[in-house]
Each structure stands twice: as structure tokens, then as C-alpha cells.
């Protein structure tokens, strides 16, 4: 509309493969991030299939326990650092400049670099499978001293890969903060910004705070392993529990890094298909900021059994319970957005609705886990596994899939196959619950997590869970087909395929031009496209 000026015609994308290596365009880099994340999702998913195949029946059928531990460790690391986080950054790259009326990210070359570090970090991480002694086998939380004195040599490669991933995330976060604060359309005030931008801005501050702590803890591991220090070794005056404090000081904000942008995505999709403005916009912003603040002061609820004094346990229990308040506000606001709306159920809406439903179930089990005395029985069981898969798979990943379908027409200018998308949704929705719901029962019945074999009373639910896992894994082949089919054969769409959608990105053509918003949108346009007026 206002932005495909003549200037663009001689400044389109470069031809050939070099385009993708040299690109500084936020749309290209967003695309790279998203395909990379999808590739890693398939790798991490394949590892999960291996885990569930071994757990299908009691006894060891397919692998030795050491390899099983490598699978659980690498599955967690790849999904967290390779799939969910890059996918969220990819969505941020594509959408934030278009949502704030900026021509591109503030630091385009940095943007290129933060992406291109990732494939190399991932290669280093995955290559450890082929080293002597195998890949890291100490869980994605890599507690010392299992990850220091007792770990295979490949651990040093893992440390290097984590450093690279951390660089990438920190640079990405700096870029987003700079873009939102400096490149925003001059007429757009902070409280005009759509929620995806708000949640990503807050997430960026979490990244900047948390990732250096992760870098610190892996560096301490590195020196403990190779240079004779004893940060985590009691015989040298260190303390293995200190590792957990430092790790979770990173790790707890990390889980909100993965979910806050998802909250933003859902806050875009629900109003569109309820044909009603988002309810409680400003309380959504404050709730997101409160969650981010609280995420820094609750880390030791992962450590109730490490031998913490009772005063510490009480404090961390109370602080943890408090998180339920702003999270509850968000869920209530989403419900109020739908209330007295005019609802339709296109595929992005189905994903968003099931997000609210299933994420809330994950929130309930999270609240239960936060109760310190009850955590004595829940800790390190399949109840925890069920909990974090409900918030990460049917939370973060659900939002990523919803966002992909919702904005895909804008990205490629074509509409996906709605019928196929609905089949895909119901397939994934049913199988994911068959996969993860029985794990609640396994955990309550006493099955520890991270075990390759189990006693016979756990056999039935493990079998059900594995069958669900195989079906859920297959659903991603359908998802890949759905996206590729849309890109190749989709019906061309207009600039606003969801005609009730609000947001500056919908004022651009479909597909959005390579360079957009060369002139910033006006105040009137910003208010017209506001989510909350």
C-alpha cells in the first residue's frame, strides 16, 4: 500500500543461494530461522521417537541405557535451543518490523550473524553423537558433577555449542530491543504496540539477563573439567548444588523466554476470529511484565529436594504460587475476548483455542509442582515430564504452529489448504494428549523420569504414551506437506486474508514486499489497526 515505492524495484533479493548467506533482510532471516527451527524440530522429534520406542515395552529392546540418556539429553537441548527458541526469533524477525511500521531490524548485519551462528552450533552439538563415548548423557539440565568429572570428552563440544547458541540469542535480543525502541513508527507509542511486540520486547530483556548466566555456568564447567578448578567439586571446596542455583537462575527465565512470545501470538489470533478487540490490553502488558519479573526470583523451586533450609523452601513456594496470578489474568482476558464475540474456527483459531485449554492444564500441574511439600512426591517423576510438555509442546509449539498458519498467507501471498489444516489439527490434538496425558498418571504412580526401563505396573500407560508419540510424530510430516503445498500450490490471497484481523502487517500486500514501510505509517493508520480500540 503505502510502502511499495519505486525505490524497491532495483533493490530486490539477490539471485541464487548467496542471497540466503549474505542477506540482511528481516524477512529472509526470519524465513531462515523458521526453516532451521523446523529442521531441528524434526531432528529432536526423531530422538523423541527413539525414546518412546525404547519405552514402548518394559525391558531393553533397542539400545543400551547410556545411549538412551544421550537421546533424552539431546532431545531436550535440541528442542529448547534448536527448535522453540529459533522459531520464536524467526517469527519476531518476520513480524516485529512489520508490526511497528519499521523498514527492517535496527541491526541487519548483526541479524545475519545471529542466524548463521546457529547451524554451526547445531552441527557441533549433533556431531557429539559420533564421538568416542557418545553425546552428552546427563540430561538437558546437565547437573554437575555428572556433567563435569563423570562426563564423556564430547562435553567440551557441548559447552562450545552452548556458548555459540548464547551469543546468537543475546545478539538477537539486542536487535529486537533496538528495533522496538528506535525503529518504531514515530507516531506509535509504547502502549499502541501489538502484544506480540510487547511480549518479545520483554522476552528480550529476559534473554539479556539469563543467557550470560548460562554462559557463566558452562564456563565454570569448562574450567572444572580442564583447568583444575573446583567450582562444583566438594573435594576442592566447591558445591554441586551451586551449579543448580546458577543453572536455574538461567533456566527459569528461559522457560518464560519460550512462552511469553506465545502469549503474544495467542493475543493476536483470538481477537481476529472472535471479531472483537483483545480484552484488557494494558493488563496483558502488565501481566507479561510481572511474569518476567517473577521469573527471576523463583528459580529454586526446581531444587526443593537439594537440602534447602525450610525458610528458603517457604519463600520459593510463595513466590512461585504468585506467578499463577498474572498467568491467570492472561487466561481470563483471553476468555473475556471470546465472550460475546462472533467466533469462527479456522485452523489458526483451533490451535489458539486448544493452546488456551492445554496450556491451562500445564499451568495447573505447574501450580501443584510449586507446592513444596507435594513436590516431594512429584519431583523428577513423569508428572514433571507431563507438566513441561503441556506448557512447551501444547504451549509454545502450539503457538508457533498457530502463528505459522495465521501469517503464512502474508508471508507467501497464498492460502493454505483449510481442510487439510483441520485434519492436521485434530490429528495432532488427539495424539498429543494420548502421548502426554497418561504421563501424569505414571508420575503420580511413582515412575521416575529419565529411565530407559521400568517395572511392570508402568507398562500399560507407557505403551499408550508411545503409541500417541508415534502418531504425533507423524503429524509433522503432514504439517510440512501443508506448508510446502501452500507455498507451491496455494490460492493467491488478498492483503487481509482474515478480514477481521487488525495490525499494521495486514496493510501490506500479500506477499509482503521485500522492503516494507519505507515511509512510516501515520497516527491515524496506527489507531485504525490497533488491537484494542
Amino acid at each position, binding site marked *: 500500500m503505502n510502502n511499495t515505492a519505486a525505490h524497491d524495484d532495483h533493490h530486490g533479493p539477490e539471485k541464487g543461494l548467496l542471497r540466503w548467506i549474505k542477506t540482511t533482510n528481516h524477512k529472509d532471516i526470519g524465513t531462515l530461522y523458521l526453516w532451521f527451527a523446523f529442521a531441528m524440530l524434526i531432528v529432536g522429534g526423531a530422538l523423541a521417537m527413539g525414546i518412546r520406542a525404547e519405552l514402548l515395552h518394559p525391558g531393553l529392546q533397542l539400545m543400551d541405557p547410556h545411549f538412551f540418556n544421550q537421546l533424552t539429553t539431546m532431545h531436550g537441548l535440541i528442542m529448547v535451543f534448536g527448535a522453540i527458541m529459533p522459531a520464536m526469533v524467526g517469527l519476531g524477525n518476520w513480524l516485529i518490523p512489520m508490526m511497528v511500521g519499521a523498514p527492517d531490524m535496527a541491526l541487519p548485519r548483526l541479524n545475519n550473524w545471529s542466524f548463521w551462528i546457529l547451524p554451526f552450533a547445531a552441527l557441533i552439538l549433533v556431531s557429539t553423537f559420533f*564421538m568416542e563415548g557418545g553425546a552428552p548423557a546427563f540430561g538437558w539440565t546437565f547437573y554437575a558433577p555428572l556433567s563435569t568429572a563423570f562426563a564423556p570428552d564430547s562435553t567440551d563440544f557441548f559447552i562450545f555449542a552452548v556458548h555459540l547458541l548464547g551469543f546468537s540469542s543475546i545478539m538477537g535480543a539486542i536487535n529486537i530491543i533496538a528495533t522496538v525502541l528506535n525503529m518504531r513508527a514515530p507516531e506509535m507509542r509504547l502502549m499502541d504496540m501489538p502484544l506480540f511486540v510487547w511480549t518479545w520486547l520483554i522476552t528480550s530483556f529476559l534473554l539479556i539477563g539469563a543467557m550470560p548466566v548460562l554462559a557463566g555456568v558452562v564456563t565454570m564447567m569448562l574450567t572444572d573439567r580442564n583447568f583444575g578448578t573446583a567450582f562444583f567439586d566438594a*573435594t576442592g571446596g566447591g558445591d554441586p548444588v551451586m551449579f543448580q542455583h546458577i543453572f536455574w537462575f538461567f533456566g527459569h527465565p528461559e522457560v518464560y523466554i519460550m512462552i511469553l512470545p506465545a502469549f503474544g501470538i495467542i493475543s493476536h489470533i483470538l481477537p481476529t476470529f472472535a471479531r472483537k478487540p483483545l480484552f484488557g490490553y494494558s493488563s496483558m502488558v502488565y501481566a507479561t511484565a510481572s511474569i518476567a519479573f517473577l521469573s527471576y526470583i523463583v528459580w529454586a523451586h526446581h531444587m526443593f529436594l537439594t537440602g534447602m533450609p525450610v525458610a528458603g523452601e517457604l519463600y520459593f513456594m510463595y513466590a512461585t504460587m504468585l506467578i499463577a496470578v498474572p498467568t491467570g489474568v492472561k487466561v481470563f482476558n483471553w476468555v473475556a475476548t471470546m465472550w460475546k464475540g462472533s467466533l469462527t474456527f479456522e485452523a489458526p483459531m483451533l490451535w489458539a483455542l486448544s493452546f488456551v485449554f492445554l496450556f491451562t492444564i500445564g499451568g495447573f500441574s505447574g501450580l501443584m509442582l510449586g507446592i513444596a511439600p507435594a513436590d516431594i512426591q512429584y519431583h523428577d517423576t513423569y508428572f514433571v515430564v507431563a507438566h513441561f510438555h503441556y506448557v512447551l509442546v501444547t504451549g509454545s509449539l502450539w503457538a508457533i504452529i498457530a502463528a505459522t498458519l495465521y501469517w503464512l498467507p502474508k508471508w507467501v501471498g497464498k492460502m493454505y489448504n483449510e481442510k487439510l489444516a483441520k485434519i492436521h489439527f485434530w490429528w495432532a490434538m488427539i495424539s498429543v494428549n494420548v502421548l502426554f496425558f497418561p504421563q501424569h498418571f505414571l508420575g503420580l504412580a511413582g515412575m521416575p523420569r529419565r529411565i530407559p526401563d521400568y517395572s511392570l505396573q508402568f507398562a500399560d500407560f507407557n505403551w499408550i504414551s508411545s503409541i500417541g508419540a508415534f502418531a504425533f510424530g507423524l503429524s509433522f510430516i503432514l504439517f510440512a506437506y501443508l506448508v510446502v503445498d501452500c507455498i507451491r500450490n496455494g490460492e493467491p490471497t488478498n492483503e487481509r486474508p482474515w478480514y477481521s484481523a487488525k495490525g499494521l502487517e495486514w496493510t501490506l500486500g500479500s506477499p509482503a514486499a521485500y522492503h516494507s514501510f519505507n515511509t512510516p505509517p501515520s497516527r491515524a493508520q496506527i489507531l485504525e489497526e490497533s488491537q484494542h480500540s
Partner: protein
Amino acid sequence: MKKLLSLTGISTALMSSKSALAEYGLNMTQGVTSTSQDIYDLHMLIFWVCVVIGVVVFGAIFYSIISFRKSQGAKAAHFHESTTVELIWTGIPILILIAMAIPASKVLIDIEILDKADMTVKITGHQWKWQYEYPEHDIGYISNLAQTSKDAIKSDNKPENYLLEVDNPLVLPVDTKIRFLITSSDVIHNWWVPELAVKQDANPGFINDSWTEIAKEGTYRGQCAELCGKDHGFMPIVVEAVSKDAFAAWVAVQKAEDEAATASATKTWSEEELMASGENIYNANCSGCHQKDGSGIPGVFPAMSGSDITNGPAADHLDIVINGKGGMPAFKMLGDSDLAAVITYERRAFGNNGSVVQPSDVTSAR
């Protein structure tokens, strides 16, 4: 087909009586201690609070989905904010949370504070076995996964209590306040028996404490609950809770056995005796890493066969087994005869040609 039947079995169980549910383990155990009962009650309280909130929230979602459909001609309203409503749904959850925090704090303080214990048991986690010591009775022993379970890992014929059976269970008297001192010799383990609601990390170099008072005689089973390496899934816990009299009798038997073992350490053993005893000890303690056939896992656990240690001077071999090295734990908790037997086995089996080691060699090497 068999699996299909078990699926039907579960759905029947879901619909039938409460006892059938217990068989499939759908819920947390109520256990046999006041702590486990308190935790169960608290768990159920939070669970029902979540259910009530869930009914309200999910009810509102489903009501919206059903009533406010565009296809049913629903017209969208335009309201989009209300400070009053926001305050209400910030305030009510806070009140609910306070109502939950009060009983939770009470239970937590009850669990964590123990004034005086009647007896103490020291629990040490090793990769991948538990060591139990009774300092007041001056006895102690190692508890390994039972051989019946080990033999069944790759077979379809699983014994009862597969992976939840040990060679030497922890024997405890009922109606006694028992303090556990929990630590580790290598990585972090976690000693968990659900029916006692005792679950505490075993941190190397530090001692954690926990306590229990068992109300009912019986056998209670648990597992290590912190990833501790390769055989984390294969170091179960079995607690035999017996009457106080039976416990006293058991202590007497243990002491007599300890004396016999000490006496055996002074005699000279034949190679056959050492090899026979050594094979059992090796399979229980060493085969987890170095493998039953002595081949190890390249890059992680060195092979026994053809190694410089097993074929070289006995002094180096003794030092590494008694004191540990890097990832290799120290085995000084084993008796002199047992150590001599297992070291001899390692030096003579797997095609090795090292020297025979006698218990007296171990005594002098300590």
C-alpha cells in the same frame, strides 16, 4: 492383540471401582507414614481446587464456543476493558492461593523439622547402588539390583517386582523415629520411597537429612530419582519395615555375619575360591560400567580385558579399586575378602593374565 486387551483393561479400570484404579496406579500413594498421608491430602486439596477453577474457566470457553458462533448468527460485542473485572480476577486468585499456602506451609514445616530421632541410618549413593550404615549398631552393607531383575532385562519373562527388587533391602523397625543422613560418593543421586514420602538428594561432599516413622510393617519399594548416569534406572530401593523385636534379631544376625567376614579375611584363599566369589561381586558392582564380558564402553568406561591395570602390577590395581580415580568410584566400603576376590577375578578372567590378590594384600594396601 495382547496390547489391545490391555487397552480395554485400562478403560474398564477407569470405569470400575476405586481398587481397580489403584492397581493401575492413577494417583499418588497415601503411603504408610503421617508425612505421606499429609502430602496426599494436600495433593488432593490442590487437585480439587484446580478442578474447580478448571470447570469455571473451561466452562466459560465451551460456553463461548457454543453460544457465540458466527455460524449461529452471533454478533460481536465491542467491550474490551474493565478495571473492575481485572481487579476481581486478580484478587480472587490471590485469596485462593493464600488459602492453599496455609496448609502447604504447615505440612512443609512439619516435614522439615525433627527434634529428636530414635535411631539413625546413613545412606550413601554410589553409581549405581545404595550403601546403608547403622552407626548406632555398627553394621552396614551394599544394596544392589537383584540378579533376577538383571537377568530379565533382555528377556520377555519378567519376575515379580521387576527392577524393584534388591539383594540386601534396608531393614527398619516400625514405630520408630528414624533419621536418614543422605550423601553420595560420586554424582548426585536421590533416595526416594514413595510410601514413606521420603525423597532427598544425595549430594557428593554434603550430608542431607530426612526422617520417617513407619506405621505399618511391610515391604516398600522406591527408586533413585535423580539422573546419575548410565544405570540410573537400575538402582532401586527396598525397605523392609519389621517389628522392633524382629529388627533386633536381624541386627544380631548381621553382626555375626560381619564377624565371620572379618575372620575370613585373614586366611589364604585358593584361586578357584577367589574367582567364584569374585565373579558374583563383579557382576553386582562392576559390570554396570565395565560390562559383564569386561569389554567396557569405549571413551567412557575402560575395558577390563587386555588393560594395563588388570595385567600390570597388583598395587596399581588395588589403588584404583580402593580409592577410585576420576569417574571411577572408590570401593573401600567392600570387605577385604570381597575386594581380593573381585580384583583377582578382574586380573584372571576376560583372557587377562594378572597376578592373584589375597585379602591380606588388600589389608596392607588400605
